[in-house]
């Protein structure tokens, strides 16, 4: 028989606005700014809106609502929520936690680079060759192996970012996680909105928009375009790896979760559209000033942020302002996402070990900060980051999302019950449309994406990196996350931790 402790709070958001802002803060991240514009351009330009909208409504929001349903009904971190549904499913929760550990340690490095580039925007430290500056002068990048040669220009901002992150996490769910998003998300919107206004005023902006929005209807016949639309929605919304389960467990019983899900889903996609407009306006300017076609200067990811944008900043009137707005946006979007990723880990460790907020935060974040600094502030940091990011997204997040959907839908068969739970206080009923999507359509689509990714990864070694590096930091990291999930699910929960979802909020354990 379970001995129940006196009610101790595990923290929660004070109202639905804070929850929605935190969820938007998690969803809006680097991928919105530096991935969506390129994916849309590649996927048929203006015609891409069709597969993108279908992906949002058929897979993105349904999967988001499934995460909400798990956390909101079971009132626990990812492992505790899955354990409450079935002890056999607990490993899925720990698998998600392990994936978050991998992502958290490299995410901080990108924030460190971006924060340095805010300063560089004033001095245009990259000179006439931003690419050589980024890889050689700034990162001293060495892709031949793993080194312990620290790069002070990365090390110092990484230490600062980790200290700030630890402080935010220690402040708790409402005062740390929630308050950060409530402040940062409006500032991000203002900063990026100002960037869009400035970018639209640059000569060549209309050419950039023409390149982004000119519809290529033939692309809609290509299955790869539909797969990339689903992939963009999936990776952008922060679904399937524990964040939304954790956040939903901090929300009051009677909150409108279905209505909140639609706000978060459309806010994320709406911001992506804004990013597309801003980024392609700036690329249009770069193309005109360099006498090239827009298609010749298009880039995504690190290439867009740290090579193309510095070139734009060097050429544009009020370039320093443009740089400050762009890199500040990256830092703000990335920081709220990092906070949400860490919350998954902290929440799980606190639930399992019944730790206070401060102790749980320190137990999790200090070791992660040390690993992060050790691996990613060195000359090999970029290589390890690139490999880890590619593999953990595909063979970590995609795989765990598919396994969890199958386990919830066909293993414990709780999806119809979730629909009833979410509909009790929700403004949008889920019965009828949501159940078949989550049980059949979305797992099939995610499975299809996974097969495409496996074929691509096996056919050609990613990035031309050496086999052992791909094995250790790519396949190894993704496999280790699954292994960690299975191992961490073995220890029993404390006798004071109820393995049944509490009926009232006041009964949740810390």
């Amino acid at each position: 028989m379970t001995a129940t402790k006196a009610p101790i709070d595990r923290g929660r958001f004070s109202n639905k606005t804070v929850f929605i802002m935190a969820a938007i803060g998690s969803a809006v991240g680097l991928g919105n700014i530096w991935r969506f514009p390129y994916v849309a351009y590649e996927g048929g330009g203006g015609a891409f809106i069709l597969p993108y909208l279908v992906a949002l409504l058929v897979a993105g929001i349904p999967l988001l609502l499934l995460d909400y349903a798990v956390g909101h009904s079971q009132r626990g971190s990812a492992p505790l929520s899955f354990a409450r549904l079935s002890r056999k499913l607990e490993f899925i929760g720990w698998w998600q936690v392990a994936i978050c550990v991998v992502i958290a340690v490299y995410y901080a490095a990108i924030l460190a680079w971006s924060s340095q580039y805010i300063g560089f925007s004033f001095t245009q430290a990259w000179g006439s060759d931003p690419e050589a500056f980024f890889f050689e002068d700034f990162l001293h990048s060495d892709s031949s192996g793993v080194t312990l040669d620290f790069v002070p220009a990365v090390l110092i901002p990484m230490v600062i970012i980790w200290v700030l992150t630890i402080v935010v996490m220690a402040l708790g769910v409402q005062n740390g996680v929630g308050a950060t998003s409530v402040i940062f998300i409006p500032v991000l919107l203002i900063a990026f909105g100002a960037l869009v206004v400035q970018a639209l005023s640059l000569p060549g902006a209309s050419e950039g928009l023409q390149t982004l929005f000119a519809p290529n209807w033939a692309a809609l016949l290509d299955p790869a375009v539909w797969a990339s639309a689903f992939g963009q929605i999936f990776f952008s919304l922060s679904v399937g790896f524990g964040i939304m389960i954790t956040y939903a467990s901090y929300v009051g019983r009677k909150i409108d979760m279905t209505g909140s899900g639609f706000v978060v889903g459309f806010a994320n996609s709406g911001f992506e559209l804004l990013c597309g407009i801003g980024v392609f306006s700036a690329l249009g300017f770069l193309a005109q000033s360099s006498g090239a076609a827009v298609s010749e200067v298009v880039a995504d990811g690190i290439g867009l942020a740290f090579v193309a944008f510095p070139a734009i900043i060097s050429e544009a009137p009020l370039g320093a302002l443009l740089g400050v707005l762009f890199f500040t946006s990256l830092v703000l979007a990335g920081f709220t996402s990092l906070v949400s990723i860490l919350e998954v880990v902290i929440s799980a460790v606190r639930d399992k070990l019944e730790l206070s907020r401060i102790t749980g935060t320190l137990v999790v974040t200090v070791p992660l900060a040390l690993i992060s600094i050790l691996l990613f502030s060195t000359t090999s940091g970029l290589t390890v980051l690139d490999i880890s990011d590619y593999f953990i997204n595909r063979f970590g997040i995609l795989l765990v999302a598919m396994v969890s959907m199958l386990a919830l839908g066909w293993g414990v068969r709780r999806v119809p019950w979730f629909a009833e739970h979410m509909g009790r206080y929700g403004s949008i009923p889920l019965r009828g449309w949501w159940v078949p999507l989550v049980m059949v359509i979305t797992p099939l689509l995610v499975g299809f994406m996974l097969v495409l990714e496996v074929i691509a990864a096996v056919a050609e070694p990613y990035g031309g990196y050496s086999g052992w590096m791909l094995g250790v930091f790519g396949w190894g990291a993704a496999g280790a996350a699954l292994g960690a999930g299975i191992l961490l699910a073995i220890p029993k929960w404390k006798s004071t931790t109820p393995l049944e979802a509490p009926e009232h909020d006041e009964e949740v354990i810390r």
Partner: protein
Amino acid sequence: MTAGAIAMMVVAMVVLWGGLAAAIVNIVRFKGPEPGESMRDL
């Protein structure tokens, strides 16, 4: 910009930003019960 590109840009704005506006209106107008007093975080 060509008429086709302008039209698709407007469609994207209407669908995504309009969808966000509709979702916000829905959640604001829905008068579900709110939770009681916020609990203290540890």
